[in-house]
């Protein structure tokens, strides 16, 4: 394929919204971007004016926005040094300056201190080709502690305007770290900043799952040497033990309506899938098989449960109505081993741990309409895939050389990122829903 054709194809894909974004991190988490999209959109984020400091500054809210957008792999950012002027109002923009630099879009703005720790923030997103404003807003009296969150919020808007896809810069992730037999469940911004330990234990913590409103996590924690499923409210830290039956209490998964948890219990013999109604505590058994049935995940409409079962000899993904009935195998002719499914927000794809033997475990993307699989990672020990709430990215754990780290790959495999925590193993990432 010629270079030109390849370019146009990629751009076409962007236009029809096939792709998307990123992750990130500094502070404790370190991020490396390993690849990006072929045809990045030329974008200038002009350092925001900061009148109280005099002139524009290199760091601040505009830097956070730049970092978000650059890490997405979707944009080629104009270096501030090459900018001829640094306008902060659209009426001061001379579009010829920017067309000379090949810029297609331009973000300008201002941060103004209006009280000791309060700021007014204004931004405008401009189309340098059509010479028109695409978006703009002014936020008043924002506390200093909220500026980072606001920056992610602006980045989300820019991303949406320029790609047609919802940005995920304001989302968060939960994950488990372990250092020297000390386990911690942490929640951090999706750029890796502001990590907060929400549970610390000398015993294993597993399988965090977000409630659809993003206010709670369900997870497995060993307690007095036995596994239990807990629900914890993030704002208060209050937690409640939901189940601690004999045997396995595992793999909690929140229903889309927030009313139920699907989970794995082995109290009646072998591991089976159960539904727990949270308001009443009523437990309904969904599968009943001597095989291992585990890792339930709900379809977005709440009507189907996908799960892992080795009822056919090896672990594969099956589907069953949430009302029970016959389970149907989903992963057929897609390798010897498929487990731990995560479903895309539109319900059309599953991300799974897949293997053909040979000790190579990779992340696979199953197209449910065509029943085909593509591989998203190289292995050899990848696991715990989870979709971003916009469906464009998958976060997962990769193990290599005695380290466990998080990685992100776009479903079209054009953007890859890696996150690492120094001195800790980090695993079982769970991507939050969009904030509400």
């Amino acid at each position, binding site marked *: 394929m010629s270079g030109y054709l390849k370019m146009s194809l990629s751009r076409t894909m962007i236009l029809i919204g096939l792709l998307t974004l990123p992750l990130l991190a500094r502070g404790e988490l370190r991020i490396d971007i390993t690849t990006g999209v072929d045809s990045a959109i030329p974008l200038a984020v002009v350092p925001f004016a900061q009148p109280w400091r005099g002139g524009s500054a290199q760091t601040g809210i505009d830097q956070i926005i730049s970092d978000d957008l650059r890490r997405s792999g979707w944009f080629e950012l104009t270096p501030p040094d090459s900018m001829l002027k640094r306008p902060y109002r659209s009426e001061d923009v001379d579009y010829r300056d920017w067309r000379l630099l090949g810029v297609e879009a331009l973000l300008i703005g201002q941060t103004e201190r209006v009280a000791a720790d309060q700021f007014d923030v204004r931004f405008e997103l401009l189309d340098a080709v059509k010479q028109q404003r695409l978006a703009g807003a002014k936020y008043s009296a924002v506390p200093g502690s909220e500026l980072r969150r606001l920056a992610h919020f602006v980045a989300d808007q820019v991303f949406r305007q320029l790609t047609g896809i919802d940005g995920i810069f304001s989302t968060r992730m939960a994950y488990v770290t372990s250092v020297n037999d000390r386990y911690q469940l942490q929640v951090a911004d999706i750029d890796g900043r502001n990590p907060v330990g929400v549970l610390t234990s000398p015993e294993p913590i597993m399988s965090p799952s977000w409630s659809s409103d993003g206010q709670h996590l369900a997870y497995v924690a060993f307690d007095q*040497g036995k596994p239990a499923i807990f629900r914890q409210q993030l704002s208060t830290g209050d937690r409640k033990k939901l189940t601690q039956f004999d045997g396995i209490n595992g793999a909690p998964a929140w229903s889309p309506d927030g009313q139920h948890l699907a989970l794995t219990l082995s109290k009646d013999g072998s591991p089976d899938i159960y539904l727990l109604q949270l308001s009443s505590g009523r437990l309904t058994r969904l599968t009943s098989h001597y095989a291992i049935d585990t890792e339930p995940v709900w379809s977005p409409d709440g009507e189907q449960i996908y799960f892992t079962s080795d009822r056919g000899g090896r672990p594969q993904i099956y589907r069953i109505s949430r009302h029970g009935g016959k389970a149907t195998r989903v992963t057929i002719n897609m390798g010897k081993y498929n487990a*731990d499914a995560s479903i895309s927000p539109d319900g059309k794809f599953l991300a799974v741990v897949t293997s053909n033997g040979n000790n190579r475990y990779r992340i696979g993307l199953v197209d449910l309409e065509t029943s085909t699989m593509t591989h998203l990672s190289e292995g050899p020990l990848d696991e715990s895939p989870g979709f971003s709430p916009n469906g464009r990215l998958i976060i997962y754990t990769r193990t290599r050389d005695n380290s466990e780290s998080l990685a992100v790959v776009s479903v079209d495999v054009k953007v890859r990122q890696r996150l690492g925590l120094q001195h800790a193993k980090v695993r079982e990432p769970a991507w939050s829903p969009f904030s509400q």
Partner: protein
Amino acid sequence: MKHKLVLVVALLGSSMLSGCTTTGGSDSMGASASSSTGSGSSSSYGTSSTSGLGAGADFSSLPLDTVSGQTGSKTIYFDFDSYQIKPEFQSVVAAHAAYLASHPTARVRLEGHADERGSREYNIGLGERRADAVATLFSAAGAADGQLETVSYGEEQPVAECHNESCWSQNRRAVIEYSAR
């Protein structure tokens, strides 16, 4: 690994104890002695003892490794994705089973483990199968259900940390932990 260390400590402790009390045969442990051996345990089972019990404690004092050479071994290893107890471990399992059957107050906790390959929750399932495989043999040999507790840690607590078969083979295991003898 932590559990393993604790086990070694507990075994050493009981061996020393037995040396002090050989003439007593299968009499009780002294209360002060059991509290000192128990202090090293990280589990909540048998870690503390009440000082007032005296000779009336209903523990058997016979150290495991004098019951049978086989019960000194507490770990059973498995093949990949398998929970079949291999021939070389049958005698170990049988020795523990016989001990349990003849000591109704003895209690064991069977911990099942898996290697790191594949998904974590499926490996919890695999670990449980391994613990259950041992429990089934114990029951068949006469151990009561009340003497047995199983728990699966899946791949969460490896004893060896590398990414090849030399470590994986050590991690695919069931461990027999006595919470009471």
